[in-house]
């Protein structure tokens, strides 16, 4: 061998992630929506259903 094992092992090969740009389709729950809805709810509406409705996208 002309190259050292360490040098050969350092040769990097990496599988790249698929570039799939996401757009949530609704009908479900996103963490962001949950957080926003809950913060809005805690902000004074006092109605948990506001959060529930927002979260399930009704």
């Amino acid at each position, binding site marked *: *061998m*002309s*190259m050292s*094992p360490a040098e*050969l*092992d*350092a*040769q*990097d*090969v*990496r*599988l*790249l*992630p*698929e*570039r*799939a*740009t*996401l*757009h*949530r*389709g*609704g*009908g*479900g*729950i*996103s*963490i*962001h*929506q*949950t*957080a926003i*809805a*809950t*913060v809005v709810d805690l902000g004074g509406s006092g109605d*948990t*259903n506001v*959060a*529930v409705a927002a*979260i*399930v996208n009704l």
Partner: protein
Amino acid sequence: MDIALASAIRNCTRVEGRNSGLAAVPPSASPDCAAPACAVELIGSYQGSGRTDETYLARRDDGQWVELSPLLSLTLSYLDGVRTSAQVADQVTAAWGRPVAGEDIDYLIDKKLVPAGLVGTTSGKHQRPDLVLALRCKKVLLPARLVSAISRPLRFLFWGPIVVLVTGLFLGVETYAFASGRLLAGVHRAVDRPSSLLLVVGLMLCSIFVHEMGHASGCRYGGATPGALGVGIYVSTPAFFTDLSDGYRLGRSGRVRGDLGGVYFNAVYAVALFPFYLITGSTLLLLVIAAMVLEIIEQMMPFVRSDGYWAISDLAGVPDLFSYFGSAFRRGQWSGPRGARLTKSSRRLVKSWGLVTMIVLPIEMVVALLALPALVMASWHAVLGHLRVLSHQEGMATVATAVLGIAFTCVVMFAMAYGVVYITWRLVRLATNNTSAPHHGGSRGRRIRRLARASLVIGAISIPVAWSAAQVH
């Protein structure tokens, strides 16, 4: 890397490109002579990479993109199923300017190129990256050729003066929408009348399609070919996507244009709807126009793999930010997975992203967990309400509505519970994988680590839920 080597790889790439990618093993090939997998394509250097060392790109026959060191790329370019390892070594030595032996080539093939699916037969399943918070169970809704056909004529919208014009109009339209004081009327109208709600839902669904076409058109404007449009499961909820993997062949600005093309087309959509609002005076249209701002804000959140994440990833030149998550907070000389070194500006950006994500994502998780008991209670009351309807009323429509209502509530609650557990598990695994020392201890050590992770997940979920449940009670 010297100019001669880059030129050698580029020349090989061009030759293989003329022959429709690297050819399959010819009939006369010796079994001792390695050949690339069918249709593996060498793309060239990875432009706009955040790494200090130059890397190259190849694309497998199954569409998987692979980043390679210059030596591996050069080796791959000389493999043809006819040359022996010694002959390939001679060619690589001449191009690289450093001595490489046949045994070195054999090592690189066996340990690097074969496991990555770049050399050997194409039969069987190739290795795929295990990504944190990635889209799963993908199904194609619109094939790539249709996406290309639709996006091609829309490229003109990315011409500089038009971008400036649309952005200005969008700001004006949104200012009017929020300042008009008519949005609340739109909300009431949408909630009061089922037909109005249906119209809003339909227009919002259209906006998703327009958004995805924005990605495809932006990608195509830069010279890459967008892939299929489809739907999949993101953590536990449905999500639409466009495959922009071909954007890896573009430079940094081309990739960022593709990333931001979606939100830009949300702006185009809002501007296009505004004349219809002026004609009809419908507050529902104004509501949808205003909703585009919320869409854009949500899409630009960089903590999960939405548009904001990809934009930061491409600005930093790091294709998988999550793989650098733990490295970002290590002391001493900073390096990413497998010792990848980043330039100063990329390092700063990745560290900033990591810091903000480390703060915001757990906060959002805790907030979601705190909301869980109230949501369960509300869902439970909804199910009881449907059951009461079932027991007191008759008729097919009533029964169907009640059953659907119960099923929907159960699915939504299951999706939320699953999503919370899944994200917590992946974050704990990510943190313990990246920040701990090399693992020792064999199977017993693995069992202890799993137990520790499971305890962390259970603790992270149960404490806020229990606290919140006590408050609700």
